[in-house]
């Protein structure tokens, strides 16, 4: 994957010129690749690969929330598992606090696990039904050999209180809790060792709307209180907009757009982002006739055999000859707004017309 490494270097240099990137990034990802091999026959000969993540570069700065959006199969969850090193990357590099963790062995990763934690999507599947809440939230201490001040039990009860549960829940089992409460338990476990980076993979998508808001607010409060850095992976663009400072949009294993929240939602530059934003159903019956929605045709192509050049070109209304031959690199255009497109929307010379989600002066 020489090509992706090249773009990685290019993106790295543009990073240096970013005005907002003065602090050293907490997490630095360059040219990250994860291909899942497809084997066939008795000899398990590799006949292809699912290119789940195919060369992505981004930084996570301390204290910020990076939102990652995309449709199912775009590789966002794989990316989450790679940066927490729950999965082994095929290529590229991951640096956490300046230290290369790309291919560390499980044993040497263990100290790092204290600093990077994960919140999972399914609050039912991610808690062991045979362990008590106290056991679940206390496990990180046991695994890391940490003896908190005042003992594990006291610390676990403090954590339960922190996430809005009662300390008396210590001896209960997961089945006694509702989905929202279970998600809180998952958050308490992730926060037990005072991590620096929390990767949350669809933290609220399994929850009801009213509960979803409770958990979003909780995560927000905890970030303020504990100075956490979040990488939040979700498919819901409204939720992502609410929680994120910067947002990366993924399509078929690539980041196609990376920008701060305001500029992404008010003036999306990649046609895919524009189409995504226009497709979000809005709870306002009047708008159904007013807005012009961009309807993408067809489905996301298979990541086993992605289209040549720009991967979005098969569904893009602006695609031209160059899109099928040359892969657009992720480059910073206006004010650090990075986009990988040959024909960006809302480019500096054009006026941002009809961008959904404009609040006042768009474009």
């Amino acid at each position, binding site marked *: 994957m020489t090509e992706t490494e090249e773009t990685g270097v290019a993106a790295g240099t543009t990073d240096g010129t970013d005005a907002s990137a003065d602090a050293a990034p907490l997490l630095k990802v360059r040219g990250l690749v994860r291909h899942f091999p497809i084997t066939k026959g008795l000899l398990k000969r590799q006949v292809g690969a699912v290119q789940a993540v195919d060369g992505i570069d981004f930084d996570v700065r301390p204290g910020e929330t990076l939102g990652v959006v995309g449709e199912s199969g775009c590789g966002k969850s794989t990316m989450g598992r790679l940066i927490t090193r729950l999965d082994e990357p095929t290529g590229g590099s991951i640096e956490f606090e300046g230290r290369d963790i790309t291919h560390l062995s499980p044993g040497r990763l263990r100290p790092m696990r204290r600093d990077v934690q994960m919140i999972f999507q399914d609050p039912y599947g991610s808690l062991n039904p045979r362990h008590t809440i106290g056991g679940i939230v206390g496990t990180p201490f046991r695994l890391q050999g940490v003896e908190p001040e005042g003992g594990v039990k006291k610390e676990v009860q403090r954590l339960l209180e922190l996430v809005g549960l009662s300390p008396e829940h210590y001896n209960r089992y997961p089945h006694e809790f509702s989905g929202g409460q279970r998600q809180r338990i998952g958050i308490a476990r992730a926060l037990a060792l005072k991590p620096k980076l929390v990767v949350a993979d669809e933290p609220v998508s399994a929850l009801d709307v009213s509960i979803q808001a409770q958990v979003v607010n909780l995560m927000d409060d905890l970030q303020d209180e504990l100075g956490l850095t979040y990488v939040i992976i979700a498919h819901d663009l409204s939720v992502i907009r609410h929680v994120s400072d910067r947002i990366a949009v993924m399509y078929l294993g690539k980041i196609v757009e990376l920008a701060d929240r305001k500029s992404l939602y008010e003036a999306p530059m990649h046609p895919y982002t524009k189409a995504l934003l226009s497709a979000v*159903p809005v709870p306002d*019956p009047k708008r159904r006739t007013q807005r012009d929605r961009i309807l993408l045709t067809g489905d996301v192509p298979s990541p086993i055999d992605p289209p040549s050049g720009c991967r979005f070109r098969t569904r893009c209304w602006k695609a031209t000859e160059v899109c099928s031959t040359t892969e657009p690199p992720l480059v910073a255009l206006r004010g650090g707004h990075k986009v990988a497109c040959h024909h960006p929307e809302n480019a500096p010379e054009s006026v941002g017309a009809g961008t959904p989600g404009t609040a006042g002066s768009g474009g």
Partner: protein
Amino acid sequence: MTDSPDSTTGPATGPTAGSGTGATAPAGPPATAPDLTKTGAAVGEPAPAGSGAPTAFLEVRDLKVHFPTDDGIVKSVDGLSFTLEKGRTLGIVGESGSGKSVTSLAVMGLHRASRQQRAKVDMSGEIWLDGKELVGADPDEVRRLRGREMAMIFQDPLSALHPYYTVGNQIVEAYRVHHDVDKKTARKRAVEMLDRVGIPQPDKRVDDHPHQFSGGMRQRAMIAMALVNNPELLIADEPTTALDVTVQAQILDLIRDLQKEFGSAVIIITHDLGVVAELADQLLVMYGGRCIERGPADKVFYEPQHPYTWGLLGSMPRIDREQTERLIPVKGSPPSLINVPGGCAFNPRCPYADLPKDNVTRTVRPELREAGGGGHVAACHLAQEERERIWTEEIAPKL
């Protein structure tokens, strides 16, 4: 409900067209039915139970679906009424466990399809579809209607389609159950339907198995199956929840177009207020097995009357508005349907539960009352003026 209501309605109460007539006129002097009193109900307000065949295309009256369990009776739906005309779309909104899917299965007669199911469910009330009552009807009769008069789109197309049979065969089967045609004609019809719902190369894809379809295409295939008999009532239970936004937009557009074309009545069940805003003319908000607010979609969205509806709107991050600092969640969690709170089911979570006097929110169950006109009703103890004040002063500015 074993006695057929048809016998008690007296003569000449055929489904007369025209919504202006409103309440059922006491069509005959025989005062056998005691509650044939005139219902001064608002437009769209269903008549009380037992008052004879309705004029609306679909009318549900005081529907109750209870499931007896070892822990107690699960009152999934507890007194739900609504009407729906052809060509209109009703959106039913609520959180998980509010009874919305149980309602749709009840209308389809799927709680009583087999003997085992009948033993497990306790259903009462009336469901009138085009002049026929379904709750008390023979399950075989309902089965003949299912698929032809009414059809359903399920949430998860992967589990709703049979993995062993080709998509085409499943559509052909649905068609041949209700139409006496040979396989060739039915297959042609299946291809035609697949084409209509936007499947590319339908004559080839008709022989594919469901796993060869993508999520969006499966949902299209299921819509094709649901529409193959031109049903007059289409129920879509979370039709887009399993889909990505871009595909969701395609499917919602498709449902809207098909409704225009076929003129069917559509019930769309979802937890996503955005989806109903795209499709529904009428909106029904459910909480704890009951309707707590119902009215024209515009009214419910712009002048919601129930604190729970406010809560739902406040909980949603909105992409179309200025960024808000914090969401306004509803505190607590949805009630257990075995042990629904006394009085108003929403009272433990309601920030305004103490406003009405005498603790009435905890003791008396509020009935649906006219609120704001235009057939907009809400079940809340708060006085109308109070609710309007809270909405305009406290809630609306924060959304």
